[in-house]
C-alpha cells in the first residue's frame, strides 16, 4: 500500500510503529482536517485489541480505538463520560472519533480528556519493549506535547469504576452541534459520613492543557458541608488567583468569569 500500513493486531502495529516513521491513524477526524503532507499513516481501525471496553473491580478500560458512538452504547462506561461524549459534535464525528485520537491530538479542548482529568484516569501505553501506566495529567507535558515515545501507542484509558456518580458537566460553546468547546467544566463530588472526600474540578479549552488544582481541592477534604460553605468565597478566590487563561477567540476575562460561575454552581449543586 502506498503511504500506509494496516495493522491487524496490536503486535503488528507495534512492530510497524517501532521500525517506520508513521503517524497513528484512528478515526481520522483530527488528522484529515490537519491534512499533513508527506506522511505515512499506521491504520489502527482493524486492531481488535484497541477496540474493546472491559471492566475489572477497579477500572473501566476503554480501548484507544473505541469510537464515541461505541462508548455511548456500552453499559460499563460511566454516565459522566457518556454525558461529555454525547455532546461531541454530531453523529458522523462521534462515529469516527476515538478516545485515543482525542488524547493523541494533545488539545485542551478534548472533551473526553477533561473527564479523564477530573476522574484521575490512567493511560496504558504500549510499545514493542513493553507497557507502562501514566496518570493522564502527567501524559500532557504542555500544549500539543505528550509523554509518548515515537515507538509507543496509547492502548487504553482506565477510568475508575466508583466515585464518579455525583458530578457536574457543562460545555459552553458557540453553537450546539460541531462547536468545539470555548469553556468546558467537569466536577466530581463525594462525601462520606457527612465529610467531603472528593471535590475535583477540571476546566477545559481555556489554557494549554486541562486545568486542575489538586492542592486547592485538598482544602475541602475532610470538611463538613457547613464548614465548606463557610470557606466558599475564599475557596473561589484561590481559584481565581491561580487561573491563568490563554487568549483565544473569545476574551480571556469572559472565559474566566464563565469558569468561576461554573465552579460556583458545582459547589452549590452539592450543598456548598
Amino acid at each position, binding site marked *: 500500500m502506498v*503511504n*500506509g500500513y494496516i495493522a491487524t493486531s496490536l503486535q503488528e502495529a507495534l512492530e510497524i510503529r517501532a521500525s517506520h516513521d508513521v503517524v497513528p491513524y484512528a478515526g481520522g477526524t483530527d488528522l484529515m482536517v490537519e491534512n499533513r503532507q508527506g506522511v505515512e499513516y499506521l491504520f489502527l481501525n482493524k486492531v481488535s485489541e484497541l477496540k474493546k471496553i472491559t471492566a475489572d473491580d477497579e477500572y473501566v478500560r476503554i480501548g484507544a480505538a473505541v469510537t464515541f458512538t461505541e462508548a455511548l452504547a456500552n453499559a460499563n462506561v460511566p454516565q459522566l463520560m457518556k454525558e461529555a461524549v454525547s455532546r461531541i459534535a454530531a453523529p458522523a464525528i462521534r462515529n469516527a472519533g476515538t478516545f485515543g485520537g482525542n488524547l493523541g491530538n494533545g488539545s485542551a479542548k478534548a472533551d473526553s480528556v477533561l473527564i479523564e482529568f477530573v476522574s484521575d484516569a490512567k493511560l496504558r501505553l504500549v510499545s514493542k519493549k513493553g507497557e507502562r501506566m501514566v496518570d493522564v495529567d502527567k501524559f500532557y507535558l504542555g500544549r500539543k506535547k505528550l509523554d509518548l515515545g515515537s515507538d509507543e501507542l496509547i492502548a487504553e484509558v482506565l477510568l475508575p469504576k466508583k466515585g464518579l456518580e455525583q458530578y457536574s458537566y457543562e460545555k459552553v460553546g458557540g453553537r450546539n452541534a460541531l462547536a468545539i468547546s470555548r469553556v468546558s467544566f467537569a466536577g466530581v463530588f463525594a462525601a462520606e459520613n457527612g465529610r467531603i472526600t472528593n471535590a475535583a474540578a477540571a476546566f477545559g479549552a481555556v489554557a494549554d492543557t486541562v486545568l486542575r488544582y489538586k492542592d486547592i481541592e485538598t482544602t475541602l477534604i475532610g470538611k463538613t458541608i457547613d464548614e465548606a460553605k463557610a470557606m466558599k468565597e475564599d475557596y473561589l478566590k484561590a481559584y481565581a488567583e491561580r487561573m491563568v487563561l490563554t487568549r483565544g477567540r473569545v476574551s480571556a476575562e469572559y472565559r474566566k468569569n464563565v469558569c468561576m460561575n461554573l465552579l460556583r454552581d458545582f459547589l452549590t449543586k452539592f450543598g456548598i
Partner: protein
Amino acid sequence: MNEIRFTLNGKEVAYAGSATDRLLDVLRNEYRCTSVKCGCKEGECGACSVLIDGTLLNSCCVAMGAVEGASVVTMEGFRETKRFAALDKAFGELSAVQCGFCIPGMVLAAEALLSRNPHPSEDEIREGLSGNLCRCTGYNAIVNAVNNAAKEGNGLW
C-alpha cells in the same frame, strides 16, 4: 503493489493511489460519485456524508487506507433502494429540497438514523441530522420529510 480493496455501492473496486488520500476526493475524481459534495473538508457540513459498513461518516475525514475491506455506499448506490424511494417521495412532497447541495448527505444521514431508530421523535431526527448543514431550507421541511418517510415507509426500516 498492494491496492486498497473495498466495495463501492456493491461493486468490488481496487484503488492504487495513496492510503493518505481523502475518500471524498477519490469518490468524486476517481469513481465519479459526484453526489458526494465537498462543502468544507473540515467535518463541519456533512455534504460529503457516506455510509461505511452502514455507519454515517464524513468522507472528507476518512483516508483511503481506512476503507480497506469496507463497504462504502453513496447516493449513487442508495438511490436503487426502496428506502430511498420512501425518502425521495417524502422530500418531494414536502418541498424539502431547494438547491439540493446538502440533500445527498441529508438523505444518507436520515438512512443512518432510521436504520438504528425506525420511529424517531422530532428531537431525535434533529440530532441525527445535526452534522448536516443546509443553507436553503431552514431545516423544518427536511425534518418533517424524514418524519413522514419514517411513518409512510413503515416496515422498510
